[in-house]
């Protein structure tokens, strides 16, 4: 067995170690450590992806006990591909959000911020690699606490309130998830996914413990759905993403909620199996809630007058897309959902960063009426915001277009009659709504300035932000042009997960 298979363990330990070490270091050093950590994770995961693509999945034993008793990692190339993407996005968020991290957080406390980021990195790696559902639960809680930390660190009353709200919903979600795991453990006696899968399959076919099995599925799915902000539990989003420092908003909306969804997809395919999940009716619930989420999220976004809150409401709609994909079918539907996870992880952080750069130019104002014509004073931010907005609308040559195309294909190809119609209608309606609020914003920032005093910002004044945004834009457009190999990678990965 090659040395490469040790990478996931090393990466997880390295993330936890960096968090521990950062606690005694000054903020600047901690920042460098976090950036290095993200770069290392990205590189190692990419190498691992190539290795696993050729070799197939590897079960990596942790500790001294073999499989039905001990803890285990399951290394698949799909997991490591997502780990690499998550690490890249996190790197770019921390890089691009540097200015506001320095402004919003006291200098003495900045190292705490990076500790939280390192912990989130560890949790995301565990979601991608773990094969043990209880380890997953522990890291869900670690991720919750760390996310709350990066929210409340700016110490304004409003962000504390947002953090409390976020925490309450998160705790409700993890409580449900824990109860689901406990019920599942009671009827199966296992915590490792392959053994769970065997037992669940046997129980489903024999019809024994039907009620507990279905209720455990409901508890686990609803727990993770609440945590990732599926309708009707998306009300914490605007406050949470709207008042945090932009790097935090980007990481929370682009990575943390996506990490939970990735873990959920893993549980659906690895523990319950697509046959059971898609005959239990739970997929229809997710489909319906996803569809309602898309429409209401877009509707609320139109009503907002604050640019950050608008982007946050649009996040709720994007989560709806992902759950709609999961609800359609185990093959194309889930592939579309996974592709949309990447789309959203790349686009949303770049939108948050660009919005904060625009608001910097407008003397810190965040309302639309104060942002009129601001793109003329901050040209780079205007361009990158426009690219992000186009991607959210789904204009060709951006990733958003590819994901909408995939959702439509999945709906038409594999959804039943009703689902096919609903998918197409919802896609059409939501594209119109997306266009309405994003195009309105783009037109507003490019229209004639109101004559207020603005701060002129060029590439030279905001190098870290521009570097990060250029990377986001390149990845966005590049991936949309190379969509078919990535689609193939995800499809092959899902069929072998």
């Amino acid at each position, binding site marked *: 067995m090659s040395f490469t298979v040790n990478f996931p363990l090393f990466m997880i330990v390295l993330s936890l170690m960096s968090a521990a070490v950062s606690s005694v270091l000054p903020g600047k050093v901690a920042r460098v450590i976090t950036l290095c950590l993200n770069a290392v994770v990205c590189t190692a995961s990419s190498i691992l992806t190539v290795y696993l693509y050729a070799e197939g999945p590897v079960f990596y034993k942790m500790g001294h006990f073999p499989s039905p008793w001990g803890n285990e990692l399951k290394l698949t190339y799909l997991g490591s591909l997502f780990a690499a993407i998550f690490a890249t996005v996190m790197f770019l968020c921390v890089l691009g959000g540097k200015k506001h991290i320095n402004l919003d957080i006291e200098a003495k406390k900045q190292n705490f911020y990076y500790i939280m980021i390192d912990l989130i990195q560890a949790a995301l790696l565990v979601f991608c690699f773990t094969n043990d559902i209880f380890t997953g639960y*522990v890291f869900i809680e670690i991720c919750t606490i760390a996310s709350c930390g990066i929210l409340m660190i700016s110490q304004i009353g409003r962000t504390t*309130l947002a953090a409390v709200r976020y925490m309450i919903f998160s*705790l409700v979600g993890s*409580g449900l998830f824990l109860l689901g795991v*406990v019920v599942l453990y009671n009827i199966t006696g296992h*915590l490792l996914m392959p053994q769970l899968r065997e037992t669940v399959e046997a129980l489903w076919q024999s019809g024994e413990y039907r009620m507990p099995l279905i209720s455990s599925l409901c508890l686990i799915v609803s727990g993770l759905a609440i945590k990732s902000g599926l309708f009707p539990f998306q009300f914490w989003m605007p406050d949470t993403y709207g008042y945090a420092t932009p790097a935090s908003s980007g990481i929370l909306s682009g990575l943390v909620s996506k990490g939970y969804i990735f873990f959920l997809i893993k549980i659906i395919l690895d523990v319950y199996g697509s046959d059971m999940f898609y005959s239990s009716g739970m997929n229809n619930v997710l489909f319906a809630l996803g569809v309602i989420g898309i429409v209401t999220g877009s509707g609320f976004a139109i009503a907002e007058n604050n640019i950050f809150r608008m982007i946050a409401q649009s996040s709720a709609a994007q989560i709806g897309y992902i759950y709609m994909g999961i609800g359609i079918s185990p093959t194309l539907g889930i592939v579309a959902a996974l592709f949309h996870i990447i789309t959203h992880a790349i686009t949303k952080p770049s939108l948050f960063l660009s919005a904060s750069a625009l608001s910097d130019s407008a003397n810190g104002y965040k309302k639309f009426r104060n942002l009129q014509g601001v793109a003329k004073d901050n040209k780079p931010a205007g361009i990158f915001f426009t690219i992000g907005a186009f991607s959210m609308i789904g204009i060709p040559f951006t990733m958003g277009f590819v994901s909408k195309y995939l959702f439509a294909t999945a709906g038409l190809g594999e959804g039943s009659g009703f689902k096919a119609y609903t998918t197409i209608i919802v896609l059409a309606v939501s594209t119109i709504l997306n266009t309405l609020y994003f195009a309105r914003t783009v037109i507003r920032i490019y229209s004639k300035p109101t004559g207020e005093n603005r701060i002129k910002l060029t590439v030279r004044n905001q190098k870290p932000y521009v570097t990060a945004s250029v990377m986001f834009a390149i990845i966005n457009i590049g991936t949309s042009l190379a969509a078919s190999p990535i689609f193939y990678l995800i499809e092959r990965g899902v069929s072998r997960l």
Partner: protein
Amino acid sequence: MLEFIWTNRIQCVSVILFAIGFSTLLLHRNLMKKIIGLNIMDTATYLFLTSIGMIEGRLAPIIQNGDTDVSKYVNPLPAGLVLTGIVVSVSVTAVMLALTIRLYKSYHTLNLDEIYLKAQEEQEEEP
């Protein structure tokens, strides 16, 4: 039905406790009571797990008198899970309490509705 409830009495109690905790956490307006609800909810899960992990007539999973017969002991894993869960809920409670203290310092009340009202006023004043 009654017999079923009697055999699973501890599980039934823990489910009721979970529901109480869950609804308190979600619906109560007072932050301290929300935190209490959170703890009731977590404890209910641990009660459920411990009660199922215990089999009458079996010993704690520590080898006694050199007897290594597996059927004489209970499974150690549920207890391990409960311990991990307790650690998690203690830390989560600590974070929630810290947040509550900070919120109280900013808004001088523990009632979430009042805090929202004050925050709304702030939002209207802000740029």
